[in-house]
């Protein structure tokens, strides 16, 4: 088997190094090497969005990014969403709106929604649905997820960090 490659990156604001094989995806390394299992995998083919992370602020499927591509980038995962004791408003609104049932899709939706609000702080329902269409949820029918995102946008009033 090929030798491992050394990768230096920033994850949730922290300098991080890891070794990985060239074939390994970012979500695989996050989960299996760095034990950051908040990023989920539902398909590993880019179709469910459970593995959503931000790569230099851009929403990507962690399963479609090679881990070595993380070199010199900034990665945001679900583990970096709350700050200290305080949940991100999106996290809070997901809880208040009961926007999760089994919760396996939740980290992916939260990351995707965060990217949306950074990009468009005041989205319409249609824009929310459009943006979140890369994320599958089989439990909720999306209603409460969409409501939570709209409510979070409202409550954040444009402050989308």
């Amino acid at each position, binding site marked *: 088997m090929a030798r491992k490659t050394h990768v230096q990156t920033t994850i949730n604001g922290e300098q991080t190094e890891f070794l990985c094989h060239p074939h390994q995806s970012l979500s695989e390394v996050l989960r299996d090497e760095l034990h950051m299992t908040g990023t989920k995998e*539902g398909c590993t083919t880019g179709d469910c969005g459970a593995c959503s992370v931000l790569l230099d602020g851009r929403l990507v499927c962690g399963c479609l990014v090679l881990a070595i591509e993380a070199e010199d980038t900034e990665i945001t995962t679900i583990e970096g969403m709350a700050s200290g004791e305080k949940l991100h408003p999106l996290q809070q609104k997901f809880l208040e709106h009961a926007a999760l049932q*089994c*919760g396996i*899709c*939740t980290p992916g939706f939260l990351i995707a929604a965060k990217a949306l609000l950074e990009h468009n702080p005041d989205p319409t329902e249609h824009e929310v649905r*459009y943006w979140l269409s890369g994320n599958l949820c089989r439990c909720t029918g*999306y209603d409460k997820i969409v409501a939570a995102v709209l409510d979070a946008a409202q409550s954040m009033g444009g402050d989308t960090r």
Partner: protein
Amino acid sequence: MSESNGSDRKFKWVGTRPIRHDGVDKVTGRANYGADFDLPGMLHACMLRSPHAHARILRIDTSKALALEGVKAVITSDDIPELALTDASGPTNFSDLSRNVLARDKVLYHGHAVAAVAATSTRIAQEALALIEVEYEPLPHVLDLRAAMAPDAPILHDHMRTKGVDPTPDKASNIAAKMELSRGDVDQARAYADIIIEREFETATVHQGDIEPHACVAQTNEDGQTTVWASSQGHFMIRAYSARLLQLDISQIKVIPMEIGGGFGGKTTVYLEPIAIVLSRKTGRPVKAVMTRDEVFRATGPAPATLINVKFGANRDGKVVAAKCKLVYEAGAFPGSPVTAGAMCILAPFDLDHFLIEGYDVVVNKPKTAAYRAPGAPPAAFAAETVIDEIAHELEIDPLDLRRNNAVSKGSQAAYGPKFSDIGLLETLDALRAHPHYSAPLGENQGRGFAVGFWFNAGMQSSAEVKLNEDGTAIVIEGCPDIGGSRASMAIMAAEELGIDVYKVRPVVADTETVGINDTTGGSRVTFATGMAVIEASQEVVKQCCQRAASVWDIDPTDVIWQDGCAVATGDGAKKLEKEDKLVPMPIAEIAAGAARTGGPITGKASLNARGAGPAFAVHLVDVEVDRDTGKVEIVRYTTIQDAGRAIHPAYVEGQMQGGAAQGIGWALNEEYVYDADGVLANPGFLDYRMPVALDLPMIDTVIVEVPNPRHPYGVRGVGEVPIVPPIPAIANAIHDAIGIRMRKLPMSPPNVLAELVRASGGA
């Protein structure tokens, strides 16, 4: 237990929407699901799966795979016990299950597991799979129900004789069983029918589509003691099935439930767990097995394709007087489709004296079907609820009037046998008529339809324990995996009984060694049955608290009642305390703090086989818009109305209603297994097996009707399954309303709808 269903009780927590106790773990990524668990020294397992839809296994040579660096074990069905063909309990045949877990002699579908490898990495395990030599003798396969029932069909199981026909046939058949339900005299009753409509329906194989692939870790000690970490709908089921398949004592296996990332019935049986156990036993190391999405589609329980024929006779007023139904359901590679449930459901919402229902359970070369939310009911409702709509149109009677005229209510004899007690079908239909959606204007190419759904709901076994902490807070321990917020419901019920704040109750889903047996999370049973156990256990705590207070006050325990989380003296006891100037309520915290002095820790336990799961009815109303050029059906507006008996946590009841509707919409419009000529599944991924995404759906309005279930202390009835029943017929009825075409084949996808449009316009 009290027979009152709490209809006059004033609730403090029941009906509120507290944040779920496991919520923060789930929004921060801390919650651990099946694949999130690792152990030091862990090996990774991969499965070799059949490339054929049907073949005899002539030879398996694993030696090259075993020789690969990093491979620690390779197993085949030779490494697990061969069970007698008749080894069954209830509907589960363990010989079949064993042969599904690892094929023996024959592979019966593309993707059927043939061998398993444990290696130091997934990569190496995958490489090893390619080194396993399997010699197959391909056999003709059969995927289609009609073909499977034909006299010259390729036979899947040479030993199989159709059950339920007299005399037992002497020839093997793919028809595993025939069942019949009847009442009255259909042929005679037909004479009273002014209109008879007979229609044939066809539905496709679909998948539960749970987002989390099946996953587990197993570790076996040198003394044979095994621990399994698994995400499933029932860890007690995992334990019992694994023990039975591997012929171990149940006490040798402990199963620790991981969070479950969706099940919908698809995680009510074992696939990987027995294999991981055997591999860990062979290697002496922990073994992790995680399916790929492709494997989930190819090898775990789809819901069956069906063929249904329905013939309704109705009089001039639209009252159905006689019905004949024939249901043919595919079981997959082994017997056991949900045709019985389908047959029992199909006429359940109709008040009807004369009917004959036949059901056929048919094996085909597809993965063994598994339960999927109200198993068997959605295709049955598709047939019955579209034909009843058609009758209304033929007779020019308002469909809702006609539907109501045929509805069952308290005292009606259900088609499947017993008389209904309190049920809420009429109430949901009335709520439908009253809803603004029902009379809102429609746009061009839009149509509106509604349909009724029925599901039995289940009770079954549950155990729970409530432990009072030293400060008067409490722990609720139960054993049903929480798929959709049930921990919050358990906490609410305990808080209600104990009279303490819902956030002072901590609900825990415990492993198989920590709590009494709990049947699987399924059948919409958890809030009902496990809830009942939690209520009983809480009442036991309350009883002990009252006794402790009585002993402190030195009064008769019967003079103590429980009010708002406090023991309160009444009657003679109160008089005595009043004299002593000590008549103040004793709060639970004080009782808990003094427990050591009054008799020790206070805990309550309850184990029960819950009776009285009240049946559930739902009505869905949908507006669709049909694109006449492409055949695409857009869901424009959707309203679900459902009798929940009593909504403990209304937000999660709504969530079940919305989620069930969304799954039903996917089933109706897009989802289907597509096979090629070789019997290979052509769309085993989310890209081509197209489930609804956020953009496909509107907001889904919910109306919770509450007709309390008289057999639950709060009136609860199950809510999880019935919402998947009405969407298919509701949408079919709406499509008819929009374009005048009756869709009788699923999915109602653009090509299928377009074909009907072209046919209707006289095209080719």
